[in-house]
C-alpha cells in the first residue's frame, strides 16, 4: 500500500461561490453588475483552462501516536497536537499533494505586468480554490476504494502550517511524495513552488 499514485490533468469539481468568498464577496451586501460578473466568470474559466492539476497520494501505516508526535511506518515523525487529535482513531494516514502547474503562475504574473491587477486577483483566488479541490478529489477517490473494505477517511485534512502543525514539516511531505517528480520545488523557507501547490494529510479509520 506504499506506492505513490499520481493523477494527471484532473478536473476537480469545485464550488464557485468559494472563489467569490476568497475575494470578499458577501451575498447579503455585495452587488455585482452583469459586466463584473461576466468578467469574473470568464476569468474563472480561463483559470480552469490554464491550470494543469497533478495530484499524488500514498497511504502509510501509523506505528504509534504519542501526542503531539505521530510516528509513521517508515520512521517519519510528524508533530502537531491538533493533528494527533484528528488521527486518534486512525490506523493509517493518507498523505497527498496537488499542484496547478507553472502556467497559471505565469498567467497571474502576466496580468499583473499588464496592469490588470483586478483580473490577476480573480485568477489567483480561483487557482487556489481549484487546486485545493484537487485534494477533495483525491480524498473522495481514496474513500471510494476504502468504503467497501469497511474503512473511511477523517472528514478533515490538515496541511503543514495549520495551527501547531509546523510549516517546516512540508519537507517530510516533499520526501514522502517525491514531490520533485510532480514539478514542485521547496525553497529554503519551506515554500512550495509553483505557488499553487498544497500538501495535506488525513486519517484512515
Amino acid at each position, binding site marked *: 500500500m506504499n506506492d505513490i499514485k499520481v493523477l494527471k490533468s484532473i478536473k476537480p*469539481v469545485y464550488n464557485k461561490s468559494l472563489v467569490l468568498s476568497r475575494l470578499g464577496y458577501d451575498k447579503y451586501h455585495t452587488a455585482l453588475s452583469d459586466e463584473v460578473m461576466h468578467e469574473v466568470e470568464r476569468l474563472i474559466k480561463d483559470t480552469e483552462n490554464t491550470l494543469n492539476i497533478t495530484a499524488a497520494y500514498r497511504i502509510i501505516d501509523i506505528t504509534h501516536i504519542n501526542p503531539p508526535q505521530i510516528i509513521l511506518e517508515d520512521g517519519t515523525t510528524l508533530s502537531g497536537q491538533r493533528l494527533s487529535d484528528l488521527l486518534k482513531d486512525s490506523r493509517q494516514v493518507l498523505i497527498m499533494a496537488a499542484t496547478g502547474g507553472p502556467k497559471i503562475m505565469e498567467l497571474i504574473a502576466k496580468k499583473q505586468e499588464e496592469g490588470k*491587477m483586478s483580473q490577476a486577483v480573480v485568477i489567483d483566488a480561483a487557482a487556489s480554490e481549484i487546486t485545493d479541490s484537487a485534494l477533495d478529489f483525491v480524498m473522495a477517490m481514496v474513500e471510494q476504494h476504502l468504503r467497501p473494505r469497511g*474503512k473511511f477517511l477523517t472528514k478533515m485534512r490538515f496541511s503543514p502550517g495549520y495551527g501547531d502543525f509546523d510549516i517546516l514539516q512540508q519537507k517530510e511531505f516533499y520526501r514522502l511524495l517525491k514531490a520533485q517528480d510532480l514539478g514542485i520545488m521547496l*525553497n529554503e*523557507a519551506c*515554500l512550495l513552488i509553483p505557488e499553487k501547490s498544497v500538501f495535506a494529510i488525513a486519517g484512515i479509520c
Partner: protein
Amino acid sequence: MTKKEFKKLLQNRLILLDGGMGTLLQKAGMPNGVCPEKWAVLNSDLLRDTQRKYVEAGSDIIYTFTFGANPIKLSEYGISEETYTLNKTLAEIAREAAGGEALVAGDISSCGSLLHPFGSVMFDEAVEGFKKQIKGLLDGGVDLFTVETMMDLQEARAALIAIKESCDLPVMVTLTFEGQRTLMGSDPLSALVTLQSLGADAVGCNCSSGPAEMVDIIRTMKPYAKVPLIAKPNAGKPRLENGVTIFDMDSESFASYAEELVEAGVNALGGCCGTTPEYIKRVGEKAKSMKPIKAERKPYSLACSNRKTVEIHGTLPFTVIGERLNPTGKKLLKEALLKGDMDVVSDIARAQTDAGAILLDVNAGVPGIDEKETLKAMVNAVCNAVSAPILIDTSNPGALEAALRIYPGRAVVNSISGESEKLETLLPLAKKYGAMFVLLPVDDNGVPETAEERIEIIKRVYSKAKEVGFSKEDILVDGLVMTIASNPSGALETLKVISWCKKTYKINTTIGLSNVSFGLPSRESINTAFLAMAVANGLTTAILNPNNQQMMQSVKASDALVSRDKNGISYIEYFSGDNQEQGKISGKSEKAQESGLKSLYDAIINGDRTTAEDMARQALISGKSPKEIIDNEMIPAIQMVGDRYEQKQYFLPQLIRGAEAMEKAMAVLAPELERSSEEKIESKGTIVIATVKGDVHDIGKNILAMLLKNYGFNVIDLGKDVESGRIIDAAKANNANIIALSALMTTTMNQMPKVMSNMKSEKLNCYMMIGGAVVDRSFAESFGAYYSNDAYKAVKLAGELIKRNKNGG
C-alpha cells in the same frame, strides 16, 4: 445464462441482489491490512456461509467476492500471479453458496488507479488485466457479470469491453455517483447512454450514497433506458463510534425506499456498504411482489461524451458540428499535429464550443502522419478540454477502432458509405463500440448525381445497418453537398435528399456545408443562404465553422423561422448580447462628448477603465485643470469605492478595478501636471513596500502598492524576496515615512522583526506596517509594527500614520 434470458428475467419481476460483504467479513474477524480476497479463500467456510445468508434472505443474484481481484490491485499485495486461481476459487465458493437457488455474478471493480491520461494505467492494460480476472470467473462457473463501484466511466468501459471480448454472458454495470456526478464528472444520462450503447445489459448505481439519493439518478436514466436499471445503495452514511464503523440507516428505514426506487424505474435492487442479509430480506418483503415499471421510451438520437449528452432531433434547435479540428487547408493545425502539439487542438476545441458548437468533428488526416496515434491524442485532448461529444472523422479502420476504443462516451463515426469495403469493415466497428454514424450516400459506383440514386443507397446501407442492430436514431444521413461552381443543380439535389429524409424516411441529416460554395467568390453569402434553405427542408445538423459569426447568426435566425427555437428565446438571447455591447459603445462615445466630470466619477466607481481614460481626456478638453479634476471628481470617487468596499457592497476585484480606472485617468492627466508648475499634486507620503526575504508570494503586496499609488502615496516597490539591507537603504534614500512589509509563511514572518531592528539601529524616522496571511495584530505589536488585515485598511492606516508622523507623533 443468455442475454435474452437475463432481459426477460429483469422485465418480469423485481430482482433482489445481495448486500455488503466487506464490513460483514471484517466483523467476522478479517484483519486490517490483508488482501480481502486472499483472506476469504483461506476462510472459505465463513465466506460461503455469509453469501448463503443472502440467498436465504431472498437474493436472486449474489456477487462473487472478487471486488479487488484484478491483477493491478492484487499487485499491491504482491500476488498478481494468483489472479486466475483466486477468481476461479471465489466463483466456485459463490456457486456452492448459491446452491442452484440464485444466480452468480462475477464481480469486477476498479483497478485502484485512474486510467490514462489521468493516471498511469493505459486503457488496454486495464482491459487485459480484467480479462485475466474474467477467465478465472468464467472457469469458476459464473452465470453473468457485474461491473460495480466504478468512479470512472472510462474504467467501466474497459471492464465491459474486456467481458464482451471474452464471452457472451450478460453484464450489469453500476457506477458510483457523488450527488448527480461521478468523481470523474460523468452524469447519470451520459453513463447510461455510453454503457447501453456499448452493450451493457443493465445499468445503474451503487455505493456512495443512501437509497434516497439514488431515486433521482434512476429517474434521470429511466426515460432513456433501453436496458433494465439497478440500484444498490449504502445503508446511509458511515461514522465511527467507539472504534467501530456504524451506518446511519437501519434495515427498516433502508427498506422503506424500496417502493420509491421501483416506482422510479429500477428492475433490480440490492444493498452495498453497511447492508446485511437482514436489509435485503426487508427490501424483499417491501418490494419483491412489485413489477418493474415499463417506461414509454421514445427513439432518442443521443451522442455523448463522458460528461455531456446531446440529443439530435428535427424539432430541437439546430445542432452545429464544429469543423475546425480538420487539418485540411489549416496550416496552423497541420503543423501542430505534425509536432504533436495538442495544446492547439484543445484551444480550437474550446473556441468552437464557446462559439456555440454542440458536437466537434475530429480529423487527423495529414499526409505522412501516424493517423492512428494522432487521432487518439486528439480525442484525448478534446475530451480533456471540452465536454462536447465528437464525430470521429476517418475512413482508416485501424485509426477508427483505436479512437472508438478510448473514447469515453458515445461518438459518431464520420462516415460509413455504401462502398462494400467500408460497409464490411466500418459498420461492425461502429456497432462494437456502440457509436452512431454518418451515412454517406456513395457506393462502389462513385458519387451519385441525383437525389433518387442517393436515396437508393441510403435505403441499402440502412438495411445492412439494421441487420447488425442499428436503428434509424443511430444514424445521421449526409445530404452530400457538392459545389454549385461545377454542378449548378447540386444544391437542389441535396435539398431533395434532406427533405425526403425528414418527411418520408424520418431520419436525421447532416451536411458538410461549406463545400457548396467551393471555388466561388463571397462564399459566406452562398453558405448562409444554403444553410437557411436546408434548415427549412428539415436539416438537423451541419458541419460548419462556428467561429464564423455570420454563419451562427444564420443558424439562430433559421431556427427561429422554422420554430425549432420555441418563442425565439435562443435568438433573442444571442442577439441581445450583441445589442447590449453596441449600446455600451455608443453610450460611451456620447458620454465622452459631455463635459465629463460627473462621468469620470462614475467611471471610477464602476471600475470602467476605458471610459475613465476617455472622460479624463474630455475633462481636460473642456478646460478643467488637472488638479480640479483630481480633487473634485477622482478623489471623491476612489473614496466612495473604498467606502463601498468597507461596507462589503464591493468585493476585492471591484476595489481594484476602481483603482485601475483611477490609474488610467491619472495617466492622461500626468503630462499636464508635469507642465504646470502651479498644479503639483502633493504626495501623501512615501512608502517603501516589499515582500520579505525568502517569501515569493507577492500578489497581496502588489495589490496594496497599486492602491497606495492611486490613493495619492509615493510608493517605492522593491518586489519580493527582499533582503533587510535593501529595504533599509531604500527607506533612507527616499526619506520614507513608512516601510510596509508582507509575509505569507511562518518561516518568513520572522524577517519582519529583523527589519525593525535594523530600522531602529539606523535610527530611521519611519513607521512599519505589516500584513499577510500568517501575521496578526499581536505579532505586529510585539515588535512595534502596525497591522492591517486587508489592503484597503492598510491604505487608511498609512494615511493615519503619515498624519501622525507629520504632526511629530
